[in-house]
């Protein structure tokens, strides 16, 4: 009984709807910018129209590109729905459309997997279930009856929880001997920026790699607690800005820093967001010289608080309970697999392991026609984009997928039975490159179904490193 009433209190506790509204506007804005940037860089064609082959995700093999017209249409839809989210215009359909279109595109090709795309999909998914359009939105302007001054606190707290999980798991992943004791991979990455003004010379020092490694781990593990604490959040946010701007300068990670800098504003107290909305509203009125009527009338005639009905509450509790349980379990799945995580990359994706290792490879495929006994070699560049080739060269599951694709190609050409073997050299964190896939195993005989990865050679740390590891 006590538990139930605590639960109810937790679900019913109301707070200002301003933080949620501002979060919605900023998310819609940065997504619209991201979609536009993606299109302007020509990446729609480069990643989803031109390639001859796509590395699909297990279970999502049916997700395929829609052809040139279809892909451009899908991105237009994605961009418009992001604008819809920002304006709070037909919000619910807009955010559902955005979630579906964005996630569909991300599922087309593993080679394009980025943790921050996964993060965007998650945030869009969570936004479907919250009343983010009941304040500071065209929906509330058109239909004043839906406007709400307050919303249940959980509708905002789930975003804080999600951000907290992202940072915390990213921090946990850094508690790795290579990261902490050898300052890898930053020891390789920072000297590449020796040409930067002022800090350049320092970046070539091993001390810089250690400083950045430890500071990064500490930041990821603790930042969410400092953001939550009402005495430290301003300084914590300053750290967020400095951290993400530093990564933006040093690494080619695209929109991620800007997304995080905006998303973490959700930790600010409601008063801040009230002021933002107030200011934006006054600026807007000044700009269009509109009389001060609409929001005033809306606020007067609308219920002050929005809360879901009992059934909806129950359903949402179940849904979010399952969702966050998965959010905790999925990143931990790697610990149930044998073998070195960095080497095999089993359980590496969807785990917030970012900027964690320097890995590069070079793969040559040996094909043998078992009927004629002839052997020949295939270089992946003939079929893959540079990015696909780069991604495949270090990830065993993608090498296997490509080997199966080659088999199909030759079967299509009339060869009844070909064998495909991979000669795959990989360097990890500055180590001497060595074979990652057993070169004697015919990959056409290996199933994609998860199982013992006997075809991946075990990680062997005795081959030595090109550079000093201490």
């Amino acid at each position, binding site marked *: 009984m006590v538990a139930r009433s605590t639960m109810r209190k937790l679900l019913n506790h109301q707070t200002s709807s301003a933080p949620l509204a501002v979060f919605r506007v900023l998310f819609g804005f940065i997504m619209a910018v991201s979609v536009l940037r993606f299109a302007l860089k020509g990446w729609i064609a480069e990643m989803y129209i031109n390639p001859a082959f796509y590395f699909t995700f297990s279970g999502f093999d049916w997700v395929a590109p829609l052809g040139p017209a279809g892909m451009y249409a899908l991105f237009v839809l994605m961009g418009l729905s992001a604008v819809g989210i920002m304006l709070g215009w037909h919000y619910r359909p807009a955010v559902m459309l955005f979630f579906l279109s964005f996630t569909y595109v991300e599922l087309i090709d593993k080679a394009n997997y980025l943790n921050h795309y996964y993060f965007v999909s998650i945030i869009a998914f969570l936004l479907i279930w919250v009343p983010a359009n009941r304040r500071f939105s065209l929906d509330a302007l058109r239909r004043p009856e839906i406007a709400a001054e307050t919303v249940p606190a959980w509708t905002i707290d789930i975003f804080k929880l999600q951000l907290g999980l992202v940072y915390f798991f990213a921090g946990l992943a850094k508690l790795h001997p290579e990261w902490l004791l050898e300052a890898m991979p930053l020891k390789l990455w920072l000297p590449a920026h020796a040409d930067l003004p002022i800090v350049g010379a320092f970046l070539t020092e091993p001390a810089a790699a250690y400083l950045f490694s430890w500071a990064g781990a500490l930041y990821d593990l603790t930042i969410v607690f400092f953001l939550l604490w009402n005495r430290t959040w301003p300084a914590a946010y300053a750290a967020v800005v400095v951290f993400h701007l530093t990564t933006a300068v040093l690494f080619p990670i695209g929109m991620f820093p800007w997304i995080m800098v905006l998303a973490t504003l959700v930790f600010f107290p409601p008063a801040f967001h009230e002021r933002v909305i107030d200011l934006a509203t006054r600026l807007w009125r000044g700009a269009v010289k509109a009389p001060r009527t609409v929001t005033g009338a809306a606020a007067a005639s609308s219920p002050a608080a929005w809360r879901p009905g009992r059934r909806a509450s129950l359903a949402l509790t179940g849904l979010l309970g399952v969702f966050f349980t998965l959010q905790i379990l999925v990143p931990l799945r790697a610990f149930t697999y044998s073998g070195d995580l960095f080497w095999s990359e089993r359980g590496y994706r969807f785990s917030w392991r970012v900027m964690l290792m320097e890995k590069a490879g070079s793969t040559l495929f040996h094909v043998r026609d078992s009927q004629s006994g002839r052997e020949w070699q295939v270089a992946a560049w003939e079929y893959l984009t540079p990015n696909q080739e780069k991604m495949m060269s270090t990830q065993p599951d993608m090498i296997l997928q490509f080997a199966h694709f080659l088999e199909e190609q030759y079967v299509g050409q009339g060869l009844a039975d070909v064998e495909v073997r991979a000669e795959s050299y990989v360097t990890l964190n500055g180590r001497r*490159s060595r074979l990652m896939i057993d070169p004697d195993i015919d990959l056409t005989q290996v199933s994609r179904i998860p199982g013992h990865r006997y075809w991946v050679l075990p990680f062997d740390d005795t081959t030595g490193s090109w550079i000093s590891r201490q």
Partner: protein
Amino acid sequence: MLCLPGRIVITVLVVSLALVGPGCDSGSSGGGDDVDDFDRAAMLENLADNVIVPAYADARSSVEALEAAIAAFESDPTIAGLAGVRSALKTARIAWQRVNMFQFGPAESTALKASVNTYPVDTARIESNIDSGSWTLGTIDNRAAAGFPAIGYLVHPIETADEDVVAAFTSGTHASDRMAYLVDNAAFVRGAIESTADAWTPGAGGAFRSEFLSASNSGTDVGSSLGMLANALVLHIERFLRDGKIGIPAGVRSAGVPRPTSTEAFYGGYSTELAIANTFALKRTVFGTSTAGTPGPGLDDHLEALGAGELSDEIKSAFDEAIAALEELDDPLSTQIASDVDPVLTTFTELQDVVVLLKADMTSILGVTITFQDNDGD
């Protein structure tokens, strides 16, 4: 709440200073022990001024000489004139091996490599161009019917006596068109190489050298000078040396069935010599050695400064082993492939070792980015 933005700005400044501060100190108090201060700008300058620009100057004068030899042959079509053309062609094709890997900047924007050296040559297309009496060189349709390989086909027809070769240019149907096709190709190749060479030459109004050496391109991202150079070298060695010159003629792309006619200088019969020249030139570029053999700062020194001296030693021996394997091959390479393909496949494997070391190990240590796309750093 009023002073909130101010507080944030000040905190950002303080934290930034805290992060940047040690940088200023260490920077001014001298370099560290583990990583030497390496002057990347000096390396790029050496590569530009002592490797790339002189190689383009050589390529330019050699194609000018080729054009002159063809003009002399046109005005006086004799067997001696033909010999002059053949020798000028070979010189130019060898000079080309010292610039063909710099496929970035002006060479990339004009698709220089595809324009002047697409092979195997499309002989049917050449003959139909000549028969029709009109052609436009430089179009995509005519790529396999233009440039060095086309000239090679015209002046080295298979199993034709020299007097008959000369006769094809002087008497018989389409003889004047055949001569015009030869002359046009010489002018086309000379023009294409000249414009890229000009773009690299400071005196000739070339802006690319200064762009290559500018501070804004001194990083390691994909558009930086080191990024362009490293990516171009890796791509060239893999696709155009290992595969194009050796692997494809040996049959690695045709289900193991050799294609001896796909060699680079099939008609001239000196494909092995071209491959050796190219491999030497690639090695010199990686090691910053000038065409004259003078050592200078190169990627090897960069690796050494980053603590990976062993890697540059290994790259050196991989190059040497590849060159030794190439030197085992006889010219014409097509004959070698037809008689005994095994040493050719051995060469492929040796070149593959170079590819792995440059593509995986070297780019990883140098921190060179290979694509424009966003990444997670993994």
